[in-house]
C-alpha cells in the first residue's frame, strides 16, 4: 500500500516541473523528442491514443482466441491432457517480453507483410487499412499481434479457472435437456462466467497498456493521432515505448516530461485494473451466496502464480486419486471378505 502511494507520489513530484512548464518558450523542451508541442497535454494526447489503439488491436485479436483456448482446455480437451495443455499456454507467459520483441522483429514483421498488402489493396477504403503500406512491416498491426500473444496467457488462465468453476449441475441439466455441447456452453458456462471473463479481458488490457519492449522494438513511430494500421512512420506511438526510446537521450526536464507521461500511464492502467476487480467483485455480490463465495476474488492473475498453484494442486489431485484407488481396493477386498463370510455361513 505504501509502495503504491509512494509510486504515485514520486512520479508526481518528478513530473510536475514538466507539466507546469511553459513548453514553447522553454529551451530545454524545445529540442529533442519534446520539440514542437504547445504544452504537456498536446504532447501526451497522441501518446495516450497510440497506447489505447495498440492495446485495442491486441485485445481484438487476442481475447477471442484466449477465450477459445480457455474453453478448449476446460471443456473440450481430454481430461488427462488438459492440465499439460494449460501448462503449455502458461509457459507463454514465462517467456521474457524482450524475447517476444525480437521474435516480433524477425518473424511477425515479414509474416504480416503479404497480409498487409492484401488488406490495403482490397480494403484500403477503410481508414484502418489506408495509407502507404510499410515495406519493412514495422507497423502498429505487427506490434498489436505481438501484444496479443503476450496477453493470451493472462486471459486464458483466468477464464479457464472460471469456466472450470461452472456448477456441474447447471451443465448436466443443460445436457439432459438435449443441448449440444455448444448450446450447453452458451446456456450454462458463459452466463456464469461472464463477469469473470470481462474482468480477465480488462486485466489483459492492463497488461497490454503497459507493455513496453515489444512495441519499442517493432513499431516505427511518430507522435500523432492516426488510425492507420499498416503504415510506417505514421503509427501512433505508445506511452511506454516512447519513454523507453527517448529516456536515454533526454535532458533532465525532458526526462521529467517523460515521467509525466508515465504517470498518466500509471493512472490509466490503475483505473483499468480496479475496474476489472470491481466488476468481478460486484457480480459476485449481486449473485446468490454460493456464487459469491466462488467469484468474490478472481483467480490469481499473474501467470507465475497460476503455474505455482497448478503445480501444487496437480500433486494433490494425484494424491487424491491414489487414495481413492486405495480406498476402492480396500472396498473390494472387504466385499470379497464379506462374500467369503457369506459363503461360509451358507
Amino acid at each position, binding site marked *: 500500500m505504501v509502495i503504491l502511494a509512494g509510486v504515485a507520489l514520486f512520479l508526481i513530484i518528478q513530473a510536475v516541473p514538466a507539466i507546469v512548464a511553459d513548453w514553447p518558450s522553454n529551451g530545454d523542451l524545445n529540442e529533442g523528442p519534446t520539440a514542437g508541442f504547445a504544452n504537456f497535454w498536446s504532447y501526451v494526447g497522441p501518446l495516450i491514443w497510440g497506447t489505447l489503439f495498440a492495446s485495442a488491436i491486441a485485445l481484438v485479436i487476442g481475447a477471442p482466441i484466449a477465450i477459445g483456448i480457455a*474453453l478448449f482446455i476446460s471443456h473440450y480437451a481430454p481430461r488427462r491432457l488438459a492440465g499439460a495443455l494449460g501448462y503449455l499456454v502458461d509457459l507463454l507467459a514465462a517467456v521474457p517480453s524482450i524475447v517476444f520483441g525480437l521474435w516480433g522483429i524477425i518473424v511477425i514483421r515479414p509474416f504480416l507483410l503479404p497480409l498487409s498488402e492484401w488488406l490495403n489493396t482490397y480494403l484500403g477504403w477503410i481508414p484502418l487499412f489506408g495509407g502507404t503500406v510499410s515495406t519493412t512491416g514495422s507497423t502498429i498491426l505487427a506490434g498489436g499481434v505481438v501484444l496479443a500473444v503476450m496477453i493470451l496467457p493472462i486471459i486464458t488462465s483466468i477464464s479457464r479457472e472460471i469456466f472450470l468453476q461452472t456448477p456441474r449441475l447447471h451443465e448436466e441439466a443443460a445436457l439432459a435437456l438435449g443441448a449440444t455441447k455448444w448450446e450447453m456452453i452458451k446456456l450454462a458456462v458463459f452466463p456464469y462466467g461472464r463477469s469473470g471473463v470481462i474482468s480477465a479481458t480488462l486485466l489483459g488490457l492492463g497488461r497490454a497498456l503497459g507493455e513496453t519492449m515489444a512495441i519499442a522494438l517493432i513499431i516505427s513511430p511518430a507522435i500523432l493521432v492516426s488510425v492507420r494500421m499498416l503504415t510506417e512512420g505514421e503509427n501512433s506511438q505508445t506511452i511506454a515505448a516512447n519513454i523507453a526510446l527517448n529516456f536515454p537521450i533526454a535532458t533532465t526536464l525532458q526526462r521529467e516530461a517523460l515521467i509525466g507521461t*508515465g504517470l498518466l500511464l500509471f493512472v490509466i492502467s490503475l483505473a483499468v485494473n480496479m475496474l476489472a476487480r470491481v466488476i468481478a467483485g460486484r457480480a459476485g455480490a449481486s449473485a446468490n451466496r454460493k456464487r459469491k463465495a466462488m467469484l468474490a476474488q478472481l483467480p490469481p492473475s499473474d501467470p507465475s502464480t497460476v503455474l505455482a498453484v497448478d503445480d501444487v494442486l496437480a500433486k494433490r489431485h494425484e494424491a487424491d486419486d491414489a487414495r481413492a484407488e486405495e480406498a476402492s481396493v480396500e472396498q473390494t477386498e472387504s466385499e470379497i471378505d464379506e462374500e467369503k463370510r457369506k459363503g461360509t455361513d451358507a
Partner: protein
Amino acid sequence: MSATITPQKPSNPIANTLTSGQLPRRIELYVLLGALALSAVLLLLIGFNIAGWLVLAAVIYLIALGILSSFVETRRKATDRVVRGLVTVAFLLALAPLISTLYTVVSKGIGVINWNFITQTSASVFDPDTLEVTTQVGAWQAIVGTLIITGIAALISIPIGILTAIYLVEYAQPKQWLARTVTFLVDVMTGIPSIVAGLFAFSLFSIIVGPKAFSGFSASVALSVLMIPIVVRSCEEMLRLVPMDLREASFALGVSRFSTITKIVLPTAIAGIVTGVMLAIARVIGETAPIFMAASFTDNFNSNPFDGPMQTLPVMAYTGYKFPGQDIAASNDSAWGAALLLVILVVILNLIARVVAKVFAPKGSR
C-alpha cells in the same frame, strides 16, 4: 373407461431427430485429411508455404464440416461441430507463437553462445596494425548484472511478500477493512506497468542522490515493486491450501499462534511457497523496461550495485538491436545470444521450481 385407442400411424412420418442422419464417427478425421490434401493441392498451384497451408486447411475443414453436418445432421449439430473445430484451432494458434519463438531464439542464439561469449565482457578492440575497431562480443557483465540485480530484488521482496501473505491468511479477519484493502491493492499492483516501476525507482533515487541516478540497486527496487505482489499472491494461495484441521489441531494442543505458523503452517506450505518464489524470480528476471530506466546500460563490467550503470541480459538484448554499435551484425548477434541466455535462465528457474515442488512436497496424505 378403458377404450382401447388403436394408435394411428401418422400419414407422413415425422423425421426422428434422434435417429435421423448421423455422420460416421471418424468423419472429423476424414474431413481434416481431405482439407489438408485439398489445400496442399491448391497451394501447390500458386506457391507453397507451411503457414498458408495450415490456415487454408483449417478454413476448408471448418466450412466443409459445417456444410456436411448441416445437410446430413441438424443445424444445431453443425454449429456444435464448427465451434469444436474453432476452439481447437484457437488452441493450436496459441501454440504456434510459443514454438516459433523458442525456435527462433534457439536457432539465432545458438551460434553466438560459446564459452568466450559467456566469460568475456564486450568491448571495442582497437587494432593498431589495421587501424580497425572490432567489437568483442561478450555477456559476462550482463550475466553478473542480472544476477546481482535480481538477487537484491529477491532479498527485498521475499520477506515482505511472505510476511504480508502470512498476515493476510493467518492474522487478518476476512471482513476486516485493512485485509480487504491490502488484498485489493496487491491485486491492483500486479497490474502496474513495468516501465512505471522503473520510472518510480528512477525518480526515487534521483531525489535522493541527484540526477544521473543510475545504479543496480535502484533497478532492484524497481523489480521488487513488481515482484512483491506476485510473491504475496502466490504465498497467499499456498497458505490457504493448508488444511484448517492442522491449525485447529495445533491450537487444541495449546500451541500459540506464532508457533503454529512456524511449526505447522509454513512447513506444510513450504514447497508451494518456494515454487511460487522461484516463478516470481523467473518472471522479473526477464523484465527489460524497469532495469533499462533505473540501471541504464553499459558495456563495462560493474559489480557494485550502488554505483554507476549496470548491464543486464534483457537490456543487452534490447540495446543490441535498438542502439547497435559500430558493427551492427555483431550487435544483433549479441542481442540474440543474450536473449537465448535469458531464456535458458528462465527455463532453469522454472525447472528448479518444479523439482522443488516435487522434493519438498509434504509427506503422507493430506
